[in-house]
């Protein structure tokens, strides 16, 4: 997981309208600007919040990507819970789930 570059792409996406346009008009060109694995590219293309979460993307970055691709808050939280359920605990970064990801306010 090249977590650094996944997060950097999302960081730029969150703050730059030109990057947001490119995401919508030519996502392959955007993904090509970063050192990413094929898996990472597909998660980003498919909006797979669960995979991105369990691979360590910081929630403070991820929640804005989720909103950008149309997730309401409760959907965002559920997507992470689904990711945990399917793939197990977060592998990297500091945003690990506790209590098996249970609880919380949605």
């Amino acid at each position, binding site marked *: 997981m090249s977590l650094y570059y996944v997060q950097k792409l999302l960081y730029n996406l969150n*703050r730059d309208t030109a990057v947001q346009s490119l995401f919508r008009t030519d996502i392959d060109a955007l993904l090509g600007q970063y050192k990413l694995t094929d898996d990472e590219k597909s998660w980003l293309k498919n909006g797979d919040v669960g995979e991105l979460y369990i691979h360590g993307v910081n929630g*403070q970055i991820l929640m804005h990507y989720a*909103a950008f691709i149309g997730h309401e808050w409760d959907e965002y939280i559920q997507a*992470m819970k689904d990711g945990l359920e399917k793939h197990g605990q977060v592998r990297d970064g*500091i945003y690990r789930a506790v*209590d098996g990801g249970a609880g*919380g*306010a949605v």
Partner: protein
Amino acid sequence: MALVFAGICSHAPGITGRAERAEPTIRDAFYAELDRMRRAIEDSGAEALVVVAAEHFANFFMNNMPAYAMGMGEDYEGPIEDPDWLGIPRTTIPGNPDLSKRIITEVMQSVDVAYAQEWKMDHGIMVPLHFLTPKYDLDIIPVNINCQGPPLTPLSRVWEFGRALRRACDAVPEKIAVVGTGGISHWPATPNSGKIVEDWDRDYLDAWVANDKDRLLAYSDEDTLKDAGQGGFEIRTLTAISGLCEGARGDLWFYAPIPIFSVGCTVASMDIIPHVNDMAAE
């Protein structure tokens, strides 16, 4: 002239963005204390407000992550987030580059801050400003302490940052208010969002109100992450105010866990007593 007001408050985006989903009685009691802080800042005659915040990857990323950063812009934009998501319209926030530069230059004598002539404010600053200067008519100096991407600055340096900021405030002719803003225990933007450990929070706030340096600096990042979540790293923004007001006591105006806001919502002030500053003697 000097530091004229010091306090702390919460900044979670739910406070404005998910307002209608909170229990109204407790929410409105919290809002009332934030409004009381607005009046206290106004009554202090503050000519500028320094907001010591923990931003969330709005301006700072791991390609150049400063431990401490301070704004030196003419003005600032915010919020960087979707205004509908945050519940705060996008606006321009006035800065004061000359005052910023004088304060930064003094802080730099003992703490190595990055400076920034641009700054896109995220909820970490916008939520407090929404309540504390709702007309955006007070000059703001934004400060960031990195609480997101390890390696993080140790708490002992946070204390020194608070002391340095105090020295700088007391060295300029203007009246300065300072507000620290960050969470206590919380797991923001994770599946556990809304989990709050009230005992941990109250223990931290006890130490904060007592301004007990030993207790405040004894927290380890390992324990904080385990017991208070990633959001717990943001105690740096609160402990900075303790260093700013070294030797003085705090007053807890409000504390209540509000799960849909993802944090134990807090409003508190700290007394201002003369600071014994060893730098001046050097």
